[in-house]
């Protein structure tokens, strides 16, 4: 029996580096007696940065491996960088909660790294099985991390809710995968599926592909918290530790959008095949409805929330509605694909940065920052820096000019206008206007209300912060502002990296 060794490829490097870092953390925990959250976080950061460096330095755009199963196309490659940067930010803002609440630090950061690994695979994989498995990796990571607080019933409950719904959506994904596999006549490669979608061998295989796509979309709708598959989001965000909620809100959604673009790309109308475009219309219609529902329901529900994390949860539902506009435009193919992809990337970058800021401040405040919005009263006096960071993040989430959020929305909506989705854009702008109310309410509380008299004594001191947490907040805030003022730098960075 002869064994042929697989050739070592640089395309593996980020994956290997991430899992290596996670392995070192887990193994290290066995040998280090005391819990060392800072050490594990630094190791995790090292892994993330090394993976990022490997992507930037060693993997050229459009590198591919495994018979096109793994492709670093421009979109996915930049997406990986955004995700890794987001992973760094979340690792940084995890430091305070993990340290203060004495969470099992090594396991926490190892699982975070592995979940990020799942995200990376999700955004570079062009093979359904790997996509499915990486979705599962993210899910497993998230529901363990959501329930990581010992003795916290809210955390356990969040974990269970997310678990049940993630497993439910996995069921859809599996059947969808099976049908896509059947439609491509026995292949899980997206390339083959695209071939089958455009030149179906039989009407039957086209039917399989359509059924498969519908099921896969249903499965992804859970991950992207699309209405009406969004109901778990607020509960899970509220119950999970704040950095985990940030991971779920930001990174898994970003990777989900990237993967969705990849998965749906076979359906993209490239030639004006009549049959083709007729079939695509169903899907674009479905996406239209998802986007519109997301914007309306997300913003409406966020208005009435009293708890900060629930508000942020519904706001992310609205944001996934905005993102879906981009997916829809991409799918229709009337605008050049690369431009839409760039717009989505810009939006995702802004989204990662501003949400990392908002969740980071909430995490920094600890229990006081994770509860009611009223608890933010008087924050500007206690800790002006945190209040400023929160303000900038929220302004950016609203889409006020001179922030990254504005740039993201502008580029995205511009593409939508190009593709004649005026109605959706109007809806989205209206939604953003409404969102100003609930975002700015927090700002109002921070700057214009005094904290309740009984809490002013002990909590009037400025919030102490770990160095790493500070770095994370400073970086995300500064980048939000910087990219808002100089949007060209962001485009430039996306191009050269």
């Amino acid at each position: 029996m002869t064994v042929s060794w697989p050739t070592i490829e640089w395309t593996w490097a980020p994956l290997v580096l991430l899992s290596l870092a996670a392995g070192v953390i887990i193994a290290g925990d066995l040998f280090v007696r005391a819990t060392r959250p800072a050490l594990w976080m630094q190791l995790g950061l090292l892994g993330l940065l090394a993976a990022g460096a490997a992507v930037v330095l060693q993997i050229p755009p459009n590198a591919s491996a495994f018979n096109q199963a793994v492709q670093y196309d421009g979109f996915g490659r930049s997406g990986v960088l955004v995700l890794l940067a987001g992973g760094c930010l979340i690792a940084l803002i995890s430091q305070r909660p993990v340290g203060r609440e004495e969470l099992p630090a090594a396991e926490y950061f190892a699982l975070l790294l592995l979940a990020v690994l799942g995200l990376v695979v999700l955004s570079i994989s062009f093979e359904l099985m790997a996509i499915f498995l990486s979705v599962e990796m993210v899910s497993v990571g998230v529901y363990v991390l959501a329930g990581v607080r010992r003795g916290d019933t809210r955390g356990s409950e969040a974990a269970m809710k997310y678990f049940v719904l993630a497993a439910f959506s996995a069921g859809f994904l599996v059947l969808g995968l099976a049908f896509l596999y059947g439609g491509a006549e026995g292949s899980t490669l997206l390339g083959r599926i695209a071939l089958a979608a455009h030149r179906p061998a039989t009407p039957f295989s086209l039917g399989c592909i359509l059924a498969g796509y519908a099921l896969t979309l249903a499965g992804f709708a859970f991950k992207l918290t699309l209405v009406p598959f969004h109901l778990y989001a607020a509960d899970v965000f509220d119950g999970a530790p704040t950095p985990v909620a940030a991971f779920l809100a930001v990174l898994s959604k970003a990777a989900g959008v990237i993967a969705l673009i990849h998965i749906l790309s076979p359906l993209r109308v490239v030639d004006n095949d009549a049959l083709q475009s007729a079939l695509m219309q169903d899907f674009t219609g479905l996406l239209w409805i998802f986007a519109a529902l997301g914007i309306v329901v997300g913003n409406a529900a966020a208005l009435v929330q009293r708890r900060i994390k629930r508000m942020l949860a519904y706001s992310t539902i609205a944001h996934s509605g905005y993102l879906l506009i981009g997916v829809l435009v991409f799918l229709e193919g009337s605008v050049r694909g690369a431009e839409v992809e760039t717009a989505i990337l810009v939006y995702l970058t802004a989204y990662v940065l501003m949400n990392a800021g908002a969740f980071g401040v909430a995490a920094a405040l600890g229990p006081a920052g994770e509860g009611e919005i009223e608890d933010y009263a008087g924050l500007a006096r206690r800790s002006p820096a945190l209040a400023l960071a929160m303000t900038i993040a929220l302004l950016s989430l609203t889409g006020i000019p001179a922030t990254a959020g504005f740039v993201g929305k502008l580029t995205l909506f511009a593409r939508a206008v190009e593709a004649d989705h005026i109605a959706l854009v109007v809806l989205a702008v209206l939604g953003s206007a409404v969102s100003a109310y609930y975002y700015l309410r927090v700002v109002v509380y921070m700057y214009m209300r005094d904290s309740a008299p009984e809490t002013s004594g002990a909590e009037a001191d400025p919030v102490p912060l770990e160095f790493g947490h500070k770095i994370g907040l400073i970086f995300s805030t500064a980048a939000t502002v910087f990219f808002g003022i100089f949007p060209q730098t962001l485009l430039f960075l996306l191009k050269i990296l």
Partner: protein
Amino acid sequence: MRLLSLQYAFYAFLATLAILSAAYVAFSRKTVYAVLALVVAMLSLAGIFLLIQSPFAALIQVFVYAGAILVLFLYVIMLLNPRQADVTIRSVFENRGPFLAAAGVFVAGFFFLTAKWLLTVYTVERFQFEEFSLIEVASRLLTDYLLPFELTSILLLMAIIGAVLIAKRN
């Protein structure tokens, strides 16, 4: 020809068994019996795998699902005081407003459509069939599907860490 009709009879039997036991799993209140029904469903699906000449999948189905996963289920059910776990029927989402009802309708309609699509476009045709050797399967797993294969190891690692982390008392 006689052998073939025997196969049809087997298939019909197994499929009926699978559907009935699946229905029991979906609607029964008694969790222990539901696990048993699930075992029956898995075994009959394994039988169907055998009928369509995929013995490896069939055996793995029995080994992994019936032999390991469902034993775990049974274990947990017994650990959690099984007689209390038998509860009255009420929908999970009953008090969750109309959205999930809409989702249910969406799902149901979707299945209807899918079945319709598939059945209208499918035409019965003869096709070549070969039973694959295990070595062939394995070599595909380690070449074309190497990435997912490696991912499963990481996934299992995560599951182990996670299960220990969640279930252990201080």
